[in-house]
């Protein structure tokens, strides 16, 4: 298992190879990419900002939990920081497993946990020159008063 924040493009093929093993019948990949529109506004690119030591810790913790839950050690997660252009991969999750169902379920579970827990923020750069921090849907403790 390996998890990390990275400041350079993510090599999807390398991560796929990394979780490969002869007893695996499946490798599932989740690749999160920068989309050109968010809530009706044209996006130019996104700056990813992390509380690095805590984000690294949470990523490692999520991988450990996924390993226990889905029964594989073949898990790699890389999350990028810094400015990303449209279409670039912001996060890649690779899960190898003897069976396809836990491999797919594991990748899905990891991205949902990552979005819920890992202290990373997106500053969207819009085509009209403005910038804004992306506000996720309110979740419990983080619900704003307003």
């Amino acid at each position, binding site marked *: 298992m390996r998890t990390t924040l990275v400041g350079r493009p993510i090599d999807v093929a390398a991560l796929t190879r990394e979780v490969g093993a002869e007893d695996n019948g499946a490798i599932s990949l989740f690749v*999160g990419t920068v989309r050109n529109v968010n809530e009706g506004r044209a996006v130019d690119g996104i700056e*990813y*900002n*992390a*509380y690095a*030591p*805590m*984000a690294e*810790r949470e990523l490692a913790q999520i991988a450990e939990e996924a390993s226990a839950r889905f029964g594989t050690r073949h898990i790699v997660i890389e*999350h990028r920081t810094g400015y990303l252009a449209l279409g670039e991969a*912001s*996060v890649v999750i690779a899960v190898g497993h003897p069976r396809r169902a836990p491999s797919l379920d594991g990748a899905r579970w990891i*991205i949902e946990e*990552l*979005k*819920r*827990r*890992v*202290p*990373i*923020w*997106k*500053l969207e750069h819009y085509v009209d020159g403005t910038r804004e*921090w*992306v*506000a*996720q849907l*309110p*979740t419990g*403790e*983080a*619900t*704003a*008063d*307003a």
Partner: protein
Amino acid sequence: MTLEVLLFASYADAAGASRVQVVVPDGATVADVVAAVRAAAPAIPLPKRPLVAVNHRYATPELAVAVGDELALIPPVAGG
């Protein structure tokens, strides 16, 4: 005791700084620190129960803090 609280993203922009200093009594809890930050930096748009990390872990409002702890206010996260 004087503590520093790290700020990120929208909180840092609102405060115009990446950290804020607060003075709280010895034995203070996370909730006390949050109250002190509200007073010291009212421009930060804190929700009713903001997420706080102590030493890189999410902390409950009741957790006691001490000098040397790394405290951070965590805006709603948006990774992925």
